[in-house]
């Protein structure tokens, strides 16, 4: 009896039960691996999407655009607003930006150039993969540019090159000197940063920006400051519309919400299949062991102990398969192998938290799956079970 009450002994007994029919255990394990692989993959996709938006929306960021919102890309904000934004109480730093879209080396390739004011921009936020030397070079060279790694790769450019971003039709070409590269994980990882006044000199529209980014001292101030700024500029030549980056992201999230709901649902359906598969396998085992369970109960094992045994078996199976499946998905996503080409040019990845959550979820799922067979096992009167009735 002592053997059964010791933890290790019980675990060994559980293992032996599970491996009673190795083939069944293997099949159930495989089913679990697949289901949890799918679940974890979907959770990773969701994690990436939600993270992307969170990343692009810092909590202390605010975003100012012209109220008319004629075009997101048109430079209509006067750059002199920047001073006034910076002066406002609670604003830590402000920086203007404008857009230019051109073509790269190959026909049909696409280069997005964002013109910024380097000193204030670099104070506003840190760029991933840009060293202090590169930042300094960028500040100092009017024609200098920090280019995203992707763009460098697809055009065959490297740091130090003098390159041309070709304009379409009558739009002039833009010649730049690459002084540094931006890491892929950065918000600007797929763009090229250039000087805003150089851009204005070539393209026209001096003294104008498409939007002004700013950072506030504390997230709670974002909304209030945004409103105050709009009030201040309400009667100026170009009235403004300022919002916190967070609410902007929320809007994009709303657009994706259907997809997110759909992915979540599929994930839960995968878990449902898990419950069914494990439950069925455990139920089969219980059916085979009617006499054995009857014997255990005759020997003094209470109902609770038998239930614990069966549920334990289910949880063990679940954990093994769930861990394997979750690990597989985690490894796949973290390897960087998964890319969604062309549609959104997304690099899907995962996180230890996703892995942990998925793997741990296998335990309650297993417990749930084991409950029904467990209760059916103890429901039968002992004498009937001993007779081997089925």
């Amino acid at each position, binding site marked *: 009896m002592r053997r059964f009450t010791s933890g290790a002994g019980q675990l060994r007994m559980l293992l032996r039960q599970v491996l009673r029919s190795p*083939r*069944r255990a293997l*099949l*159930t394990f*495989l*089913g679990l691996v*697949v*289901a949890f*692989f*799918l679940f974890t993959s979907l959770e990773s996709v969701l994690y990436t999407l939600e993270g992307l938006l969170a990343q692009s929306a810092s909590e202390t960021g605010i975003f100012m655009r012209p*109220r*008319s*919102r*004629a*075009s*997101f*890309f*048109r430079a209509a904000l006067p750059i002199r607003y920047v001073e006034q934004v910076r002066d406002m109480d609670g604003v830590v730093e402000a920086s203007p930006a404008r857009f230019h*879209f051109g073509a790269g080396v190959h026909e049909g390739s696409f280069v997005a150039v964002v013109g910024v004011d380097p000193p204030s921009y670099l104070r506003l936020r840190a760029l991933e993969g840009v060293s202090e030397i590169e930042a300094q070079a960028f500040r100092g060279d009017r024609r200098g540019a920090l280019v995203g790694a992707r763009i460098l790769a697809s055009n065959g450019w490297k740091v130090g090159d003098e390159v041309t971003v070709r*304009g*379409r*039709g*009558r*739009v002039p070409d833009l010649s730049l000197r690459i002084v540094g590269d931006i890491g892929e994980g950065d918000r600007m990882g797929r763009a090229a940063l250039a000087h805003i006044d150089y851009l204005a000199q070539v393209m026209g529209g001096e003294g104008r920006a498409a939007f002004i980014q700013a950072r506030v001292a504390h997230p709670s101030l974002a909304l209030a400051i945004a409103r105050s700024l709009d009030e201040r500029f309400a009667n100026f030549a170009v009235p403004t*519309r300022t919002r916190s980056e967070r*609410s902007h992201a*929320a*809007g*994009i*999230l*709303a*657009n*994706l919400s*259907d*997809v997110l709901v*759909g992915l979540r649902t*599929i994930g839960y*359906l*995968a878990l*449902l*299949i*898990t419950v*069914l*598969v494990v*439950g*069925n*396998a455990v*139920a*089969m085992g219980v059916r085979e062991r009617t006499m054995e369970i009857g014997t255990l109960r005759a020997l003094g094992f209470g109902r609770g102990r038998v239930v614990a045994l069966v549920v334990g078996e289910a949880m063990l199976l679940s954990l093994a398969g769930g861990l394997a499946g979750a690990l597989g998905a985690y490894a796949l996503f973290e390897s960087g192998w998964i890319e*969604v080409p*062309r*549609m959104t040019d997304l690099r899907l990845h995962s996180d230890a938290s996703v892995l942990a959550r998925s793997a741990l979820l296998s335990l309650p799922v297993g417990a749930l799956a084991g409950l029904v067979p467990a209760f059916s096992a103890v429901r039968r009167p002992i004498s009937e079970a001993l007779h081997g009735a089925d």
Partner: protein
Amino acid sequence: MAQATLPFAYAWRNVLARKLSTAVTLLCVAVSVMVYVVMISTADGIERVAVSSGHPHNLVVLSTGANSAESSRLAPPSIPVIRHFPGIARGNNGEPLASVELLSAQEVRRVDAVENDEAGRFTPIRGVTPSAFQVHSGSHLVAGRLPREPGEILIGRLLARELGGVGVGDSLSFAERVHRVVGVFEARGQIFESEVWVELASLQAMLDQRDVSQVVIRVADPSRLPEWKEALSESRRVQVDVRLEPDYYADMGRGSRAFSYLGNLVGFLLGLGAIAAGMNSTYAALSGRVREMGTLRALGFGRSSVGLTLLAESCLIGGLGGLLGILLALFFDGFAMSLMGLAFELRVRPASLGEGLVLALAIGLVGGLLPARSAARLEIVEALRHA
């Protein structure tokens, strides 16, 4: 020699006999099939909008270098030049069939959502003139009337559904003000159904600009389409890029391909899970009938007939699960969804249902192969001795 296979009734009744096991496998198959069909139908829904949007004789005229209406800017002087370009078809009243349009994506919310400070969806707002309905064939009002005053708007059928059943008389908020819906229009499943249409002048006033995004023109003689396309692109009087309208919208098809791919992948994975469940069930069925199968063999039935009947049972369960799965999937037909501002309806095609059934039968077949082989390899004497 007479039938060397066991009768179908035998397989069918055995399937019914193991209620719980059958039910579990059936459910797993049903879920796999349902998810697969729904995802493929999502792809089809997106594809349908992409494929059906745009008239084959329409040209979309954008400013040079713009690859979408969003980034296109046509100044007022260029508009009459484009409108009076030779080759444009004429409407009943002799006016050129040219739709001058301004597009802007705005965050659209129902008025009550504004009060709750909920986020709205980014929706395309299209500023149009009456000729829009002629150029974009298939679009017509199904309720209400055309806008007469500023502040009055039209809403596409799908968008109305997406926003929770918005109709004539309801109000929507965007661009800092409240607008009243005076009409609902439909456009044969084209992308326009997920848009808000307003008077061009109203939108220009709202956005405080006189530029437009594009002009969509109908060419009178379709055989000369390439000619006019080229002539307009090369024209010295305006700097424009010209695209065939259907091509312009075909790009949306990219999104549908992602869903197709995802659907196949997910269906495959879930199918593997169902195969595992099915194989377990079938092995269990076998182990419960070893003596029975031995008896049948003793009575003269060959190895293959015993194996085949087990395989038939597995396929039967797969088939039933498939039927349930496609029935469930059918519920989603016509389901309104939106992705990145594009509203569409899920479209369940008969072909997708067929594919779902094939998936189900494949699951049954693969799941039943190994157990069937075990059954066929039974040795009669040992089998008869089995419990």
